């Protein structure tokens, strides 16, 4: 996993979050802390992250894997091998 791909994945996730929660300030996000608490996301918003990953990037996240998406760092770790970023 190159650092570059990880950065790409991170910006993909941030892009999705900024579309779902347009008025949130994402610049101070702590990658290791829960997204839910920092951004007041609820389970419906979480579904939107999964939905956009599927729609835009053809990545499937089964429900049992949702906990992997709890933090930004978790998202990057879980999604990087699943994404085809050639």
């Amino acid at each position, binding site marked *: 996993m190159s650092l570059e791909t990880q950065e790409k994945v991170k910006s993909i996730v941030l892009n999705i979050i900024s*579309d*779902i929660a347009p008025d949130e300030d994402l610049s101070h996000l702590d990658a290791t802390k829960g997204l839910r608490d920092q951004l*007041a996301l609820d389970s*419906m918003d979480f*579904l939107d992250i999964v*939905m956009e990953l599927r729609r835009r990037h*053809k990545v*499937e996240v*089964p429900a049992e894997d949702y906990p992997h998406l709890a933090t930004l760092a978790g998202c990057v770790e879980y999604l990087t091998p699943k994404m085809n970023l050639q």
Partner: protein
Amino acid sequence: MDPRYDAIVVGAGFSGLSCAVRLGMMGKKVILIEKHKIFGGLNSYYTRKVDDRKVLFDSGLHALTNFCGPKDRHLPLGKVIRQLRLSYNDFKLCPQKESKISFPWGSFRFNNDSQFFFQNLKNFFPNEMNNIDQFCEFLKSYDEFSQENFKAPFIDARDELRKFFTESRLIDVLLVAPLCYGSAREMTLDWNLFICLFRSIFIEGLSRPKAGIQGILRPLTEKLVDLNITIETGAAVTKYLFNSAGAVCGAQLSNQKTILGEQVYCSSGIASLSLVEDQKNLEDPITFVEVCLVISKKDLQSYIPWTLHFETLGDQVQYKIPTDPFDQNLLIWSCSANYLDPDENKGDEEEVSFLKLSLLANGNFWIKTEAETYQQQKNELLSYAMKLIDERFPGLKEKIIGHDAFTPRTIKKYTGHHGGAVYGGREKWKDGISPWKNLYIIGADQGPPGIVGSMLSGITMANQYGFISTTTSSELPNELS
């Protein structure tokens, strides 16, 4: 070849519109079927000539419940806006001025600051002071949308309120608005639904989109177009199609088209699905007649101080299907002139507003009666409304520019709901699963009533069955699909 869709959504009321938008956002191929030419269902609009001008009538809208600010994303309306990726500013919400609940023995004002209402209750019922505080504390800790509470079996709200309060009059004050704005049962409603409605009216509050119902319909319709959703209007579903395994696989339309689809989301009410069932044992539903008077905004404001007025003429709330064509105990008034418009003075001084009077009605009578008695009763309804207005606001009658009225027959004709039902049947299908595989229930028979409630219903059912259930089921790996 017949076109094939991932999802067929039946009905372009607020539940169907929201459901279709959500499914479209998931990347699904969606068709929305509406038997009328106009969207909105129970809450739609039409134009009619009054004097020489064309007046735009909202066919339902009294007030939008669940008021929220632009940052209140955790509240139901905030969630709806966010899930549908609408912009808060599109709605141009004008909050209510002040509303009122009255009985012959007392009257209670409320606005969008719930403390004002609770203080008025405490002043009138000083012995209940602590109980009111306890009720408020309870509300703070209760979550009506949690799985456990939402899906709980029926609990009588009156019984629960008796555990908090000793004065039965106070219980009536608390019950009347939630009953009128969402109960499919007589005299009482489910406890969880009561809390949901109580919060939506008194804690979150009331508002009105500046452009009326079109203020919400328009941005929703634009979304449908952006998402490339196929729209079929002026065609009704006449029959559902089943595959050899007994699951729904499509629909037959009144224009002879056949639509095939993997899933169907239906908002026309469980009773309408008796296209496939026995029609006889259906209960009479809660339904209303309404008189709508067109009056200039300025005139209305000078006569009427409130936004809504729930007026009970007897000592106790009588929320019952009348044996007469319309009820004369409980008057539900709404006045569209009394919302706080941020750019009030920029507007046209000539603007017209609506004074509406809604009364519980005997749906059976209005639907079955012959044309002549129907017209006669409609005239009687109008005279009754005029008499009430004359008693309460002498002089206002002369200011009326035009009027219109609708009855359960109109509701049935325009929405297809059995008996002209406004809040669905008494039994709810809370998980949205119908007796027919692949067919899901959305709208008043599934989720909370009202505009915001039905939007939430469409959204949650789309999330549940259009998305979650497909992600949990074992899927083909990407390369193979």
